[in-house]
């Protein structure tokens, strides 16, 4: 055993797996980072979900056949005949969806505690890459059952690429392995889903965790540098290990329970001649689909998402004059401005959707300008001016710091996107008309 701490004669030598588990951790960690509200165990939960996905996915591979003639039959048999087939498939389904949710929540924790700033800047970018891979992993898996849901979601999802200027048509052909969603698309998505994406995820997740350790562990509330930066340390085993174990068990229980109660959906076999009505993307893409209902496709699939990604990736590179601080939302002002941003987005986004439904949308009012101006430039300009004015007003009113202002802007965009997602998932009926869930308009 290492000798750089006081000897512990009573401690037994951990063997095998326990030894590996301890080897991956430092010996001691700052006590304050163990508090639940520091992390909510989200990063660890995401790792556990990844492992559950690999295990359940490996099992599913024994039953699945990646050909358009046989895929649907194999998944149908999994649902109806294979013992526990439906359960294992539901575990994979729920773990995949929760993986995205937990990873997104983890991103929010990192953002709102300011943990994306140096020395954790590169790890923030790596985390964004991991989130993109998680979404891609989900999306490639979506096609494999080859049912109606799969076929049309992937037709729409890959079709979005055609609105990329110049390279659009080539990108669509590349993503589908041809001009239509075909057997080629299935084998392409299959390889990405079961090999390339999991391998990349495994490598980058390891890197991600290693960088957390290099940064001195989880972001602390107390100063990390300077004379006051001597935290009280506690041993990883047992203090951290038991907490990680608890988080892992809670995560696994949540997945198994969801899987036992709710089956994974499986619609009719894919029919290239008939779209289901309404045809909806997977929930994590519904925000983009709702945007596609509202604005020009090039703006919905390229301009707005690129602005969003640039904003997220650029966050740690903006110069924040104030010293870093690991408190949630930074300060009382920060909490207040975040809450106000939530309210503003909750008011403005549904209002805009309702106005558009009444025909008050720029492409209806000024059809002469051509779709890319009337449905693209104009709505984007209106939103930039509106949100910019609100942000300036908020900064003046509460005299916000740079960090708090950026935080407020992020919150507005996040909540607006969530509203779009919820409207798309729950409030869109046949022909994508607005309806109340479970009732008429």
């Amino acid at each position, binding site marked *: 055993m290492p000798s750089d701490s006081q000897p512990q004669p009573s401690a037994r030598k951990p063997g095998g797996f326990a030894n590996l588990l301890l080897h991956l951790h430092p010996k001691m960690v700052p006590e304050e980072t163990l508090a639940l509200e520091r992390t909510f165990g989200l990063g660890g939960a995401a790792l556990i979900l990844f492992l559950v996905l690999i295990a359940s996915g490996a099992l599913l591979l024994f039953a699945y056949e990646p050909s358009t003639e046989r895929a649907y039959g194999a998944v149908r048999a999994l649902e109806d005949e294979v013992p526990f087939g439906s359960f294992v498939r539901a575990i994979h389904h729920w773990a995949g969806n929760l993986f995205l949710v937990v990873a997104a929540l983890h991103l929010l924790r990192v953002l709102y505690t300011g943990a994306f700033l140096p020395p954790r800047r590169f790890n923030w970018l790596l985390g964004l890459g991991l989130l993109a891979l998680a979404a891609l992993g989900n999306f490639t898996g979506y096609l494999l059952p080859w049912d109606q849901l799969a076929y*049309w979601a992937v*037709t*729409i999802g890959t*079709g*979005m690429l055609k609105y990329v200027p110049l390279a659009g048509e080539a990108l669509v*052909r590349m993503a589908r*392995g*041809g*001009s*239509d969603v*075909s057997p*080629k698309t299935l084998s392409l998505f299959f390889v990405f889903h079961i090999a390339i994406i999991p391998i990349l995820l495994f490598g980058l997740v390891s890197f991600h965790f290693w960088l957390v350790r290099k940064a001195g562990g989880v972001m602390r509330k107390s100063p990390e540098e300077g004379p006051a930066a001597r935290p009280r340390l506690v041993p990883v085993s047992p203090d951290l290990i038991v907490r990680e174990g608890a988080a892992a068990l809670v995560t696994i229980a949540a997945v198994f329970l969801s899987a036992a109660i709710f089956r994974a959906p499986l619609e009719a076999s894919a029919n*290239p*001649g*008939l*779209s*289901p*009505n*309404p*045809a909806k993307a997977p929930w994590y893409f519904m925000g983009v*689909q709702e945007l*596609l*209902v*509202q*604005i*020009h*496709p090039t703006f*919905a699939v390229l301009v707005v998402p690129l602005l969003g990604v640039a904003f997220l990736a650029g966050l740690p590179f903006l110069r924040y004059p104030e010293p870093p601080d690991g408190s949630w939302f930074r300060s009382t002002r920060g909490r207040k401005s975040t809450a106000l941003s939530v309210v503003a987005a909750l008011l403005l986004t549904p209002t805009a959707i309702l106005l558009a439904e009444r025909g008050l*949308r720029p*492409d*209806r009012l000024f059809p002469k300008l051509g*779709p*890319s101006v009337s*449905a693209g430039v104009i709505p984007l300009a209106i939103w930039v001016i509106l949100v910019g004015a609100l942000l300036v007003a908020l900064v003046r009113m509460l005299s916000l710091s740079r960090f708090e202002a950026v935080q407020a802007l992020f919150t507005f965009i996040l909540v607006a996107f969530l509203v779009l997602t919820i409207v798309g998932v729950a409030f869109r009926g*046949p*022909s*994508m*008309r607005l309806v109340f869930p479970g009732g008429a308009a």
Partner: protein
Amino acid sequence: MTSEPGVSRRGVLGRLWKILGIVAAAEAVAVIGAFLWPRKGKEGARGSLVVAGPVAEFTPASVTPFPAHRFYLVRFTDGGFLALSSTCSHLECSVPWNEKDRTFPCPCHGSVFDMTGDVKSPPAPRALDLFPVTIEGGIVRIDTNRKIRRAHFEPSQVVNL
């Protein structure tokens, strides 16, 4: 031994390794690219010359679906024909014909097209694609190999007897 400042034997060898590495990476990219590149000729023959039937079979002001070939044969009141692709010009969903409203409402993003395939309601940026229609000896034929993109409906697109 004479050595120029800044250029050592080790430095030259190190650079050589780097260049070799770049060459090897470029070779790998070329091999993988060629391996994965879609081959021509396997696809392509998806469309065909579809014989829709004698002119008299299609009453004026009617829309006849050909789901297997993914188009609608529209006949206007004046007797003219138009073959509309049933693939939405927005994101390629298949649009149904609504006889009551006499429109093609897209189930995916809410675009609505009228009987000529023109956009009645956004977000679709352009009208439904066309397939060329030929009428010979009273028989209507549609060439689904050739898709015609268009921004708007124009009367010249209609094929008359």
